């Protein structure tokens, strides 16, 4: 028996197996039981991962299918009723044209891009100062900023809004995008400064000292030495902030008061309140909101994962 098994082992291990498995098989000759256990071990993990992914995906897939189904179908059956599947792009046309979703899309872009670039610029400069410049109370100020992470944004809405409307009423900040740019920027600063500072501080101090001896000013050090080596961290934070702003509804409700400047999230909300049961429009609108974040995430996920890791454990 045992001779049989030995003869079988390489043949079993070879097809489709990785080099590691082949080598292990040759070296240690696992029994059939061993192999079954290891397969189950690994498939247990895969099974759980697949399950999580499935649970996560079901509503999204449902939304996607719903958004392409005609109104009558949606009201008759659920999206899982594949037998009754008729696809149409009419919902999208209607949402984009009649419901002003395209304008809302542009509004969201106008809100999200400056609301990402402004915090990026301010946070990276501040993070440089907090990690590599000497000034009085540096660490105390940094601690206070970290402490601000604990303050929920909702707490600050009323005071900030009052500030915008009553302290500088002539600027009419809330009529345009300025109010929401400033609000998003302000609320992003504590986390951004915290994240980037903790990454910058891991850079070798000698590198910065060397550039200082080489004759670089702080601005030159920041631009020529720090920025190029911290692109992953900055990109990760940028993506994070962009997604946050893109998906934001609450801040938009408070700080954008001109209805022609409403972002997509608010436009979807309007769909809901105007047509409480118009699921076909709602699904299409919601999916349009999601498209950009999904594209951003998949095209930049390398930075996203790398940067978050780099910031925390490097």
């Amino acid at each position: 028996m045992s001779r049989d098994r030995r003869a079988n082992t390489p043949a079993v291990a070879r097809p489709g197996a990785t080099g590691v498995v082949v080598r292990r098989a040759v070296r240690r000759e696992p029994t059939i039981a061993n192999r079954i256990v290891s397969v189950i071990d690994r498939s247990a993990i895969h099974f759980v991962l697949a399950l999580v992914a499935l649970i996560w995906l079901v509503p999204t897939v449902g939304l996607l299918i719903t958004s392409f189904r005609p109104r009558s179908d949606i009201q008759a059956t659920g999206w899982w009723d594949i037998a009754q599947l008729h696809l149409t792009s009419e919902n999208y046309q209607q949402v984009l044209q009649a419901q002003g979703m395209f304008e809302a899309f542009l509004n969201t872009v106008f809100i999200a891009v400056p609301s990402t670039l402004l915090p990026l610029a301010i946070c990276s400069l501040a993070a440089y100062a907090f990690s590599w410049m000497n000034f009085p109370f540096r660490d105390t100020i940094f601690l206070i900023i970290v402490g601000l992470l604990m303050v929920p944004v909702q707490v600050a809405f009323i005071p900030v809004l009052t500030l915008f409307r009553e302290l500088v009423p002539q600027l009419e900040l809330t009529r345009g995008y300025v109010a929401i740019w400033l609000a998003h920027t302000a609320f992003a600063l504590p986390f951004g400064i915290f994240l980037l500072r903790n990454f910058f501080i891991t850079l070798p101090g000698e590198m910065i000292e060397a550039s200082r001896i080489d004759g670089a000013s702080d601005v030159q050090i920041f631009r020529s030495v720090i920025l190029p080596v911290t692109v992953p961290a900055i990109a990760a934070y940028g993506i994070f902030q962009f997604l946050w702003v893109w998906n934001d509804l609450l801040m938009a409700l408070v700080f954008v008061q001109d209805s022609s400047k409403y972002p997509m999230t608010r436009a979807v909300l309007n769909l809901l309140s105007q047509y409480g049961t118009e699921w076909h429009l709602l699904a299409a609108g919601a999916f349009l909101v999601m498209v950009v974040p999904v594209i951003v995430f998949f095209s930049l996920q390398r930075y996203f994962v790398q940067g978050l890791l780099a910031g925390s454990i490097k």
Partner: protein
Amino acid sequence: MATVRLEHIYKKFGDVIAVNDLSLEIRDEEFLVLVGPSGCGKTTALRMVAGLEEQTSGDIFIGDRLVNDVPPKDRDIAMVFQNYALYPHMDVTDNLSFGLKLWHVVRDEIKRRIEDAARMLGIDRLLQRKPRELSGGQRQRVALGRAIVREPKVFLMDEPLSNLDAKLRVQTRADLLKLHQRVKTTTIYVTHDQVEAMTMGDRIAVMRDGLLQQLDTPEGLYASPANLFVAGFIGSPPMNFFRGTVRQVDGQTMVDTGSVRVPLPPRVAGGAARAALGREVVYGIRPEDIEAQNGTGGWPVRANIEVVEYLGNEVQVHANVQGVTFVARLSPRAGARVGEDLPLSLHTERAHVFDAKTEDAISG
């Protein structure tokens, strides 16, 4: 080319005094080594010369200029760091030219200096590579190159060889010396390695606990250490020490350990010897000043051999003379065998005597 002068430099970190009243003058074109165990303040001293650290009090002059309030970039210095501190995102050319561009050196001049330095350091074929594509030795050369192209008044080097493996370190040591003979730039070199210090320094400043112990040439440090610490720090294997009392025995002034008596060296003679009478001292003799007896003089002792370390060109034996143990460097032909007795002679004329309390050398 410039002198560097430190006058009564103190550096305190909170309650800790890292550098304590350091006064030092580095001569023009000199290669001065700051050496000492870790935490002795040598790197802090170097960083203060660089301007990366501000002294608590005292004055630093580079050339004739007081540089206390001059930022690093305006001190006309270049520094080589222990971990090289290259710019990881720039290739070698950009690493070398970064500083020059900031000083608006004209392009032809930058090109000339980089080519010169690269040829001198043997890195001319690596100019397009990024630091991560270089070996440790190559990175080290780029770091040196970055200092050279600046053509500064002073080089500051902070343990530049300590990240290299032993063989490369010996070679780079020689290369650095050749380089210094060529460019003749005043250099301050920090190391914890006494061999590096001895082989490279025109003069060596030995530091300990923030205090300068002795400033001398390698020969001077070796031949007449100022105190017990320097005596033990310089030389490998280190000097043998044993405690004893100075006594008059049969008309001769001897150091008596209780079981062994050895004569005072001639440098402790006359008044100094008389003053030392009855005092507790530490007697020091280097392993190389102990020989197998061959009739050419020296103070004879009979030693029991406890350990023999064979090194090829020599053996280092741990010998025991009536309870006093010491290390001797002998010829492999001396016939030292573990457990056996061997007649040795101590060249006591080259021995050193230190006050047991103050640890300072006693000499007449």
